[in-house]
């Protein structure tokens, strides 16, 4: 900084002359006399012949302002684009749901997930259908992938769903096209274990896991999971069968309430 001041002081006379000339020329160029008009036109001609210089100096502030406006618009269009993409995705999902509802032999009530609760582990969600839409406690809830849970409590226009992924959820299932049945208990990371399946039951990896129908709540043949591993341990009375659940509650936005008379009171 001190060097700068010293430099300015050293060149003060030249800088002062430059300033005086600059002001004088500015005054000249702002006149309306013929000389000034001629100078102004000459100046405009020189500047016009040097568009890059003009671009870099006189229009810098205006380009900065324009750049700022364009950036703002870019962000706005980005948000709009994301919104449109989300709408398109939702539209596709709703079309899938519509097709699913038409294919299903059950009477279904569509609803939207309106809350996922505040718990760190997702065990319930709230949907936008309640008693006004005919929803009752223990009604099965389906997603496009399969069984999602059951109604835990219900209000006029909302219901709390106990999710199939919650560790306290239990459902009677059958495995593959066999008559082998067991009790599904969820574990973690979207997986579960089927208890009560005897060894050598001809269960294979990839076999579907469906609701058995031995329930007052769930009708039979609702898709629940797919077999991931099968272990027959020596000395054990039952096979250890690990399944991967179809439903992904954290990503589900639209659900169906199964309205038929399987639910208990």
């Amino acid at each position, binding site marked *: 900084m001190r060097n700068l001041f010293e430099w300015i002081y050293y060149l*003060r*006379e030249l800088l*002062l*002359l430059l300033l*005086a*000339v600059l*002001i*004088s*020329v*500015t*005054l*000249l160029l*702002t*006149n309306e*006399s*013929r*000389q*000034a*008009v*001629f*100078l102004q036109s*000459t100046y405009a001609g020189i500047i016009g012949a040097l568009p890059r210089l003009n671009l870099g100096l006189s229009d810098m502030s205006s380009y900065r302002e324009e750049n700022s406006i364009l950036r703002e618009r870019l962000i706005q269009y980005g948000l709009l684009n994301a919104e449109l993409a989300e709408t398109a995705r939702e539209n596709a999902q709703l079309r899938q749901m519509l097709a699913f509802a038409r294919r299903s032999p059950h009477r279904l009530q569509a609803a939207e997930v309106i809350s996922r609760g505040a718990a760190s582990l997702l065990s319930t969600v709230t949907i936008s259908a309640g008693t006004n839409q005919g929803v009752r406690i223990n009604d099965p809830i389906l997603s496009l992938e399969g069984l999602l849970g059951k109604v835990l409590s219900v209000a006029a226009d909302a219901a709390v769903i106990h999710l199939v992924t919650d560790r306290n959820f239990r459902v009677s299932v059958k495995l593959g096209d066999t008559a082998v049945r067991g009790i599904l208990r969820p574990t973690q990371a979207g997986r579960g274990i089927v208890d009560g399946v005897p060894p050598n039951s001809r269960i294979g990896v990839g076999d579907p896991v469906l609701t058995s129908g031995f329930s007052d709540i769930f009708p039979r043949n609702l898709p629940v999971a797919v077999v991931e591993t099968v272990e027959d341990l020596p000395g054990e009375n039952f096979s250890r069968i690990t399944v991967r659940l179809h439903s992904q509650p954290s990503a589900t936005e639209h659900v169906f309430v199964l309205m038929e008379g399987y639910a208990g009171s």
Partner: protein
Amino acid sequence: MPALKAASWALLAFAGQLLLAPLLSVGEIRPDFILILLVYLSARYGRVTGILAGFTLGLLQDATGAVSVLGINALSKSVVGYVAGTLNGNLSIWTPRVVNLYIYGSFVGHALIYQSVMALGLDSTAGLLANHMVTEAFMSSLMMTGLRYLVPLVRSPL
């Protein structure tokens, strides 16, 4: 009080420029008393004062209607103030030839800038332009030479 003294001389120069210069004009060219005063001021007080005085006096000269182009005298006299300010401290060191070169050179420079700008857009011929330049520079030089005999630069009353 150098400033007050300089201001008094400036008033006198302006009065001479407004009242006396038209009587001493050669064709369209009038002598420039303010330019003479500026050379004295610059030689006495240096470049910075010369530039400031040149700009201020020139602007006032423009504002009083001496010319129709505002800024032309401020421009040319700022340059003269810078050039003539170089003489400050060197008058007794440099040879008379070098001193004269600075003084009369500044007059030529003033005439060059002033007449060139004034000729812009007027379809002036080169001959006429040169004539005006030479006339102005000659008149200023003549007056300066006469004054230097009466009031030497090294002992100016400013």
